[in-house]
């Protein structure tokens, strides 16, 4: 008798079906943009991605051909500058949060880092514009690298802290019980155990700032030629895409599509690298 269907069985079935359909559509909505963006980029940009794109400088308006080699190299230089600022400060900050400091100070620092992670990236550009560009009277690669580095710091702080906290206390105790100093324990045991996680955090932060455009508008500024002086304006892939995309020339539009495709592919590759790095995570604790 208790196994008989309830009176509202059909209605309940319908509600359940409706709920799973809505959930499935929401999931599809999340994934769809990635597919759409990538196929759109392929459709419009693939034809313009060729050897010239990676090896030639931009041509003057009206002259066919040319590439974005200066922007690609410029982006790499900016990322190197950003890494030089963001990695040491971010990693050491994360170590401080996880291993040192009092509970009150740390919760304040954590809160500040979270707020900074939410600050719109153009704000960093304006800040660096005020602090560096105005003072030294000129746009420069240094200013661009600083803006990107400042964005990286709170990102790396939080990921580093999280993976260091995952290292079991037994390893710290084991090292300290051998008479190893606190600092050496942290560097040679704790950070070494968490190194995959720390590197993952760094790569994700680099991927994030690699596509930033807004903070570079006020700092690196961009140009159309080779520049080997870091104190001068420097081209960057996102900036070049921006400039070309808002131009009125079809030729430049095609190049912008190609640049966007290259940028997205690069960031995609970094993310794949992160997946490969984190695959062994369960095996080696962190």
């Amino acid at each position, binding site marked *: 008798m208790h196994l008989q269907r309830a009176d509202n069985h059909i209605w309940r079935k319908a509600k359940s079906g409706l709920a799973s359909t809505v959930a499935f559509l929401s999931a599809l909505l999340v994934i769809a943009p990635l597919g759409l963006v990538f196929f759109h980029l392929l459709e419009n940009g693939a034809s313009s991605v060729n050897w010239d794109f990676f090896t030639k400088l931009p041509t003057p308006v009206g002259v066919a051909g040319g590439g974005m080699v200066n922007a690609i190299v410029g982006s790499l230089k900016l990322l190197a500058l950003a890494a030089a600022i963001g990695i040491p400060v971010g990693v050491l900050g994360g170590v401080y949060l996880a291993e040192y400091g009092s509970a009150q100070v740390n919760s304040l620092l954590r809160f500040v880092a979270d707020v900074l992670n939410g600050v719109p990236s153009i704000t960093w550009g304006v800040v660096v514009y005020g602090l560096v560009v105005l003072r030294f009277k000129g746009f420069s690669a240094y200013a661009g690298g600083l803006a990107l580095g400042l964005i990286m710091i709170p990102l790396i702080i939080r990921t580093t802290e999280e993976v260091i906290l995952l290292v*079991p206390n*037994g*390893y*710290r*105790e*084991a*090292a*300290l*019980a*051998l*008479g*190893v*100093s606190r600092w*050496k*324990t942290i560097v*040679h*045991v704790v950070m*070494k*155990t968490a*190194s995959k996680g720390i590197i993952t955090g760094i790569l994700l932060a680099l991927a994030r700032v690699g596509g930033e455009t807004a903070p570079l508008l006020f700092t690196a500024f961009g140009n159309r030629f080779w520049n080997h002086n870091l104190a001068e304006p420097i081209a960057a892939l996102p900036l070049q895409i921006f400039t070309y995309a808002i131009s009125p020339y079809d030729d430049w539009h095609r190049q912008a599509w190609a640049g966007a495709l290259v940028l997205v592919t690069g960031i995609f590759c970094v993310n794949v690298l992160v997946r490969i790095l984190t695959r062994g995570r369960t095996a*080696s*604790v962190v």
Partner: protein
Amino acid sequence: MVNLLMATPDPTVVEHVDRNAESTPTPQPAPSWTFQVKNLSVWYGEKRVIDDMTLDVASNAVTAIIGPSGCGKSTFLRCLNRMHELVPKTRVEGTVLLQGDDLYSSTVDPAIVRRRVGMVFQKSNPFPTMSIGENVVIGLRLNGVRNQKFLNERLEKSLRMAALWDEVKDDLHKPGTSLSGGQQQRLCIARALAVEPEVLLMDEPCSALDPIATAKIEELIHELKADYTIVTVTHNMQQAGRVSDYTAFVYLGRLIEFGPTTKIFTNPSQRQTEDYITGRFG
């Protein structure tokens, strides 16, 4: 007491040792006692976990600390190499003398204390990023020893002392975590022995091991006491009876009874000790 580590050319180490020697006005003669603990009390915040414990730990012997969970026996053990300081808001009163040196004197560096007083933990914890060989010599290496020949000699000697050499000598490059549980615990013992401490503290070293691995560690403890003073915490009373020369029964942070193991187990003078040993509580 010539610790090889202290003979390494590390000026800070030498300086600390000298200062310790000077700061002890009357050097304790006849070091048949490795530790002399007087009126030791420990607080975690407001909570008093060790209450006025006084006992002497004999050299080249095994002293077992027994008692029910939470009675403070692990805390007591950690006070012997200042590892309890890793817990914030701990406070210690009383004195602990190691061969006459006051461990809690303000000039003492806890790292030096831990080089003289090694420790093995309940859960084996070889470093997961290091090979078997690296695990053994890491203490020496991080304390500044660079001489590869010396490290290799010490590697073999420590593994032999921990009765692990024959099992791992061809696999020294393999990860330390690839060993079995019992082997990992012996690797941790080898790692502790490599820095040549005077004392080995063991915090329930067999509680996570099967009976065969436990028997091996117990045999090892028996052999090691020729060269080391050993203090071990155990839940297992049969184990205390088998391996130790002296037994301390701790209950609610107090030392209830302390004496030769045979006496504690056959003719305890305190009612509580008898009740605990016969399994009436705890």
